[in-house]
């Protein structure tokens, strides 16, 4: 009887030890694997990426669209408001063409931290500094809001401005939430079906697309302004 109890004690203790050994080994290996994945870099060729080329072209077009003489304008909008808007668009152009974006041209490989830096700059400079800081007032023009500006030619576009602004802001928040997940490489995360390594290129691609979308939005506003001014010039 005593021998049997001893054997069972030995059996149970060994069973627990084997389970813990497997568990601890799994933890060590999965962490080493995760660590290696996070350290990996993805090769990119940003200079030949069509989205990057589009953004560069958009920046040039914004600069060109706001290059007019306000004094020649004879339309409904106050010249002061036109000048104000030109200043805002110029500032947007500067924010979009930031130093990091310029340096990206020479990048050959990116890591997850580069993607996060890109996202941070996109959120801080482009989304907050340009879309929200400079162009958000366009979302309230022509509404019944007592603080809303009267900007007659643009009033019909107000729902569109609102929609795009919301989309840009929400996308940026979503990207950050997704990137923050990379520290939880655990089976309860929603990234169980894709590796962290693959998500580096996909996140970078998403952010670049969002960047392009934002630059398109700014270009559209600058085109509207340019058309308004060009159609109402003194010599027209």
């Amino acid at each position: 009887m005593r021998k049997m109890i001893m054997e069972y004690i030995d059996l149970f203790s060994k069973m627990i030890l084997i389970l813990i050994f497997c568990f601890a080994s799994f933890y060590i290996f999965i962490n080493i694997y995760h660590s290696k994945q996070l350290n990996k870099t993805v090769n990119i060729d940003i200079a030949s990426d069509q989205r990057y080329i589009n953004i560069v072209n958009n920046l040039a077009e914004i600069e060109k669209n706001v290059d007019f003489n306000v004094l020649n304008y004879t339309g409904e909008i106050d010249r002061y408001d036109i000048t104000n808007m030109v200043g805002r668009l110029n500032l947007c152009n500067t924010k979009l063409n930031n130093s990091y974006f310029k340096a990206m041209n020479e990048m050959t490989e990116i890591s997850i931290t580069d993607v996060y830096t890109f996202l941070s700059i996109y959120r801080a400079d482009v989304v907050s500094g340009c879309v929200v800081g400079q162009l958000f007032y366009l979302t309230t023009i022509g509404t019944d809001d007592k603080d809303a500006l009267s900007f007659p030619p643009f009033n019909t576009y107000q729902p569109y401005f609102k929609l795009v602004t919301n989309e840009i802001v929400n996308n940026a928040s979503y990207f950050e939430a997704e990137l923050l997940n990379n520290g939880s490489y655990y089976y309860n995360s929603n990234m169980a079906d894709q590796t962290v390594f693959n998500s580096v290129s996909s996140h970078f691609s998403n952010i670049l697309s969002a960047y392009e979308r934002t630059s398109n939005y700014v270009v559209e506003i600058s085109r509207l302004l340019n058309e308004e001014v060009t159609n109402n010039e003194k010599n027209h």
Partner: protein
Amino acid sequence: MKRIINGIFLIIRFLALLAAFALSLFIILKMYQRLNKNIVDSWQVFLPYFLLLICYALNLILHQKSVNSDIFYNLVSCVVMGAIIFIGYRAIMDKNMIASIKLASGINFNYYADHINSIKTMLYGLVASNVLLMFYRPDKAKKKEATINTTDNVMNNKDTNTQEPVAQPIINSIQNDFSIPNKEEIIPQSNEINSENLRNINESTQHPTETNSELSREEIERMINELKL
């Protein structure tokens, strides 16, 4: 060699436990400081560490060979502590995790918090296993086992020894000079006559010498009958 490796694991498991505890304490302290929580509330995180420390101390004080000389237990302890230290190290040093950059406090609390329950599970497992091994008496069990084995061996040897001499005098006598052995030599100590012996006898009698072949056969048949009786 085994004793030396076991001794190394024994020392490492102690040092690794202290290192893992210090690392966990540092991270939890920072975490609770950040959350403005009372550190006393984190007692359940450190309870398995204390229990394991008490177990290790008891193992050493009471000279419990069942635990101290168990190389597998010491190895698993080292692996578990290694895993805990590695998790703590990554929480502090791995800056590729975005949460670490986002939190900007030098430690990735999100990552560490994900692993607290797993760490507790592993430590409680080690405690349970240690307690079970404390009650295990390998010496007595082994001694009993050894006694049983020895008895079995003796029995087996006796059987094998008794089988050989039964046939040997008969076979030798037939093969050599067909001289009839004494009755005392022929009759075995035990009555175990197997078919192999009989076959050997028959084979030897199939090629007798010309001089006394009839006699030999008769004698052999008589001997077999006697043995059968």
